[in-house]
């Protein structure tokens, strides 16, 4: 068996041996702060994004809990101002809170949850944080193609989020995150909140476009010598496909939101039926972006799973090409399915075509899932936190994917649409897919990013709380939906109460799980043991540098000598031979 020792045979061109970690402070607190805020280092920008999206996740999560508390009782209870009312209202400074508006308050928290989670957490989440940090490392580059643009997009993200937060402080928005007209053009007519929130989404779109554009060019131009397209790690493929969707879909939401702003501020009437405008046109525009963007959310997650799954089962990925191409196929098909959000307002023929196209997405998605499961077969599986989350992803994402099929089928959708079934379905794909994979990725790469190990026991406790909490919260909602509970309502028939209560209890278990994770991470940063450079026996290029990486990423100009997943043939860089099991080469691959 040919074993290649990578870390002794690297070429010595630019020697960065004496260089310190990128985290090393540059001087006093102030100087370090200024250094971080003006950095063009992709690693620092990735870390800054990570904290920014975590904060937004926290805000969105609090709003979700407020919604769940409200739903404990079938009758609007915020009316007496006990639970949801005064406390949370004062927390968020909702100044026009009053008893009469309590239903409004519920709507606002629901919108807040949706808009923050979608525009400020899920969409930028993985690509901007982990993608920013690891994409250049994994292709052996010193930085992304346009480092200054990268920093700019972080500031645009902050600026856009600020608009969103201002809209919340001014009283919130109650349109739902989709901003459907005519609701978004008529609600709160005397306030600027909707305009601010829409502008926030518009500005965040720029951040998304710039990040995507940067990544596409980076992958095209900055791969290490010797790295062909099919030598790239699958995470890179996933981020690349995502970036293409970001570049191609975001401008359309840009113009849509801009027209909505014109509609609100200049009354242009394009979406106003009273003036001959067409509100359904808004929905078409909106979903032409927002459906592809669903794959902006999930593709990077699939990329993370492709990495963790192979590393922690010590097996070459099954069907590398199939997984890579299915990412591109999903990206392509995603542009043709927006109509399935408008089934009820379309003619039969249109709806049938969109239904058929929707089913088409299931094929590349299933290709991925089958390949992942086949990779696990006969692997030496290590059940640490990232792998547990990877398993959870396979489980919950499968449920999320399969429950989408009844929604894509016209006849069943008639019964299920706008019900809690839809809510449960997309939470199983968004949370059970993106968030779970994000957690897998963070736990997988945390020691690489910060150079500190975290408590396995603590993070496993967190995992079990999240796993149980998530399933209790959302599986009940499938039942609620099939029994007829409509989505978005604050009040409901009392027969639904038990299931709603179970769901709310689940959401608190889920929140507890996140606090355990937060605690574990803080503990890791404070007192964590120093991590080894290659603590999981990975073969991709980020494992050739130290943990945390040095300022210029690599000690030597990296040179690709083996594929990303050849665990049977290669001793992982910076590891002793025999430290990790070397499985027998399996004849399953297309290399």
């Amino acid at each position, binding site marked *: 068996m040919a074993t290649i020792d990578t870390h002794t045979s690297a070429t010595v061109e630019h020697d960065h041996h004496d260089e310190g970690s990128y985290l090393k402070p540059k001087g006093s607190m102030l100087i370090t702060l200024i250094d971080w805020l003006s950095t063009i280092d992709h690693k620092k920008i990735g870390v800054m994004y990570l904290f920014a999206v975590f904060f937004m996740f926290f805000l969105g999560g609090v709003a979700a809990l407020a919604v769940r508390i409200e739903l404990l009782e079938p009758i609007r209870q915020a009316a007496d101002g006990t639970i949801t009312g005064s406390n949370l209202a004062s927390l968020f400074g909702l100044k026009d809170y009053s008893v009469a508006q309590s239903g409004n308050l519920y709507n606002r928290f629901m919108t807040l949850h949706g808009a923050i989670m979608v525009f400020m957490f899920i969409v930028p989440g993985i690509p901007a944080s982990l993608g920013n940090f690891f994409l250049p490392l994994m292709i052996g580059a010193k930085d992304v193609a346009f480092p200054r643009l990268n920093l700019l997009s972080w500031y645009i993200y902050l600026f856009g989020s600020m608009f969103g937060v201002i809209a919340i402080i001014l009283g919130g928005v109650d349109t739902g995150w989709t901003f459907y007209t005519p609701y978004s053009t008529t609600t709160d007519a005397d306030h600027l909140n909707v305009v601010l929130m829409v502008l926030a989404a518009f500005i965040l779109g720029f951040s998304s476009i710039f990040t995507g554009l940067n990544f596409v*060019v980076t992958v095209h131009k900055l791969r290490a010598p010797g790295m062909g397209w099919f030598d790239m790690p699958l995470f890179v493929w996933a981020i690349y496909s995502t970036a293409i969707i970001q570049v191609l879909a975001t*401008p359309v939401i840009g*113009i849509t939101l801009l*027209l909505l702003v014109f509609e609100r501020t*200049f*009354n*242009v*009437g*394009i979406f106003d039926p009273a003036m001959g405008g067409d509100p359904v*046109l808004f929905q078409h525009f909106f979903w032409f972006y927002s459906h592809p963007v669903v794959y902006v959310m999930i593709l990077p997650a699939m990329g993370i799973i492709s990495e963790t799954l192979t590393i922690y089962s010590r097996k070459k990925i099954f069907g590398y090409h199939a997984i890579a191409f299915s990412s591109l196929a999903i990206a392509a098909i995603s542009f043709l399915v927006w109509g399935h959000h408008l089934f009820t307002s379309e003619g039969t023929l249109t709806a049938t075509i969109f239904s058929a196209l929707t089913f088409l997405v299931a094929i590349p998605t299933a290709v991925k899932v089958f390949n992942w499961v086949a990779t696990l077969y006969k692997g030496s599986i290590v059940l640490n936190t990232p792998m547990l989350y990877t398993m959870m992803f396979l489980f919950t994402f499968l449920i999320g994917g399969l429950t989408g099929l009844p929604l894509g089928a016209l006849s069943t959708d008639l019964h299920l649409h706008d019900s809690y079934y839809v809510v449960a379905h997309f939470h199983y794909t968004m949370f059970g897919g993106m968030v779970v994979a994000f957690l897998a990725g963070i736990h997988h790469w945390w020691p690489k990013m910060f150079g500190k190990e975290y408590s396995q026991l603590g993070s496993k406790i967190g995992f079990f709380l999240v796993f149980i909490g998530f399933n209790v919260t959302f599986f009940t909602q499938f039942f609620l939906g099939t029994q007829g509970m409509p989505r978005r309502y604050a009040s409901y028939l009392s027969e639904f109460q038990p299931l709603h209560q179970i769901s709310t209890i689940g959401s608190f278990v889920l929140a507890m799980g996140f606090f355990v994770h937060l605690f574990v991470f803080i503990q890791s940063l404070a007192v964590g043991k120093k991590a080894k450079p290659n603590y999981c026996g990975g073969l991709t290029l980020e494992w050739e540098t130290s943990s945390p990486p040095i300022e210029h990423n690599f000690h030597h100009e990296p040179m690709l000598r083996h594929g990303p997943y050849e665990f049977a043939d290669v001793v992982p860089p910076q590891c002793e031979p025999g430290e990790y099991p070397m499985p027998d080469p399996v004849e399953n691959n297309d290399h």
Partner: protein
Amino acid sequence: MTTMDAQSSESKQQPYWKKYTHQPHWRSKEQEFDAAKIGMWLFLVTEVLLFSGLFCAYAVFRLLYPDAFANGSHYLDWRWGTLNTVILLFSSYTVATSIHNAQMNQQIRLRINLAITMLCAIAFIAIKFTLEYIPKWSVGKRPGSWFSYPWASEPHEPIWWSIYYSATGIHATHVLIGVGLLGWLLIRSFKGHFGPKHYTAVEIVGLYWHIVDLIWIFLFPLLYLIH
């Protein structure tokens, strides 16, 4: 002329474009230049998609209200539209020439061409505002519910004006951004930043300017020349 430019700049200290080295994460200047171009082309794709939303809205409403559109279009003066088209086409030529000048190290011609391009952009905006927007707005040809033109013959004319102001307004914003970018190039060209070995900024602003021009080429017939 050309050689004189080159000699005079060499006789002083080395110009910026000769000293320029690529950013450290690139392997060569050529690679950096290529990447900047790919990046700009991708950005242009997003621009086209941005306007495609507007074209889409235009198509929908023109199909719904063909008479309102035909009627509304007659209120636009095709002569001003044509003049603006000529101005933009000419500026596209001058910006293309300025890239050539940078490659050939014709510093003075580079500055002249950039200045002409910028003046064309300003002229476009001036014509747009003083001869089109303001007269129309003042007689009540306004978008949506602000429409107050008393002699409108079609009930859906406000929608036509909404589309007209949205499309040309967003385009005019792009022209204004172009003025800023060209001004930036002009200042840098006076500092001798561009030359045969380094003209990335001229090239990519040139690309941007062409797309602004191209979008107008589509907007002009769709808005001014329909019946």
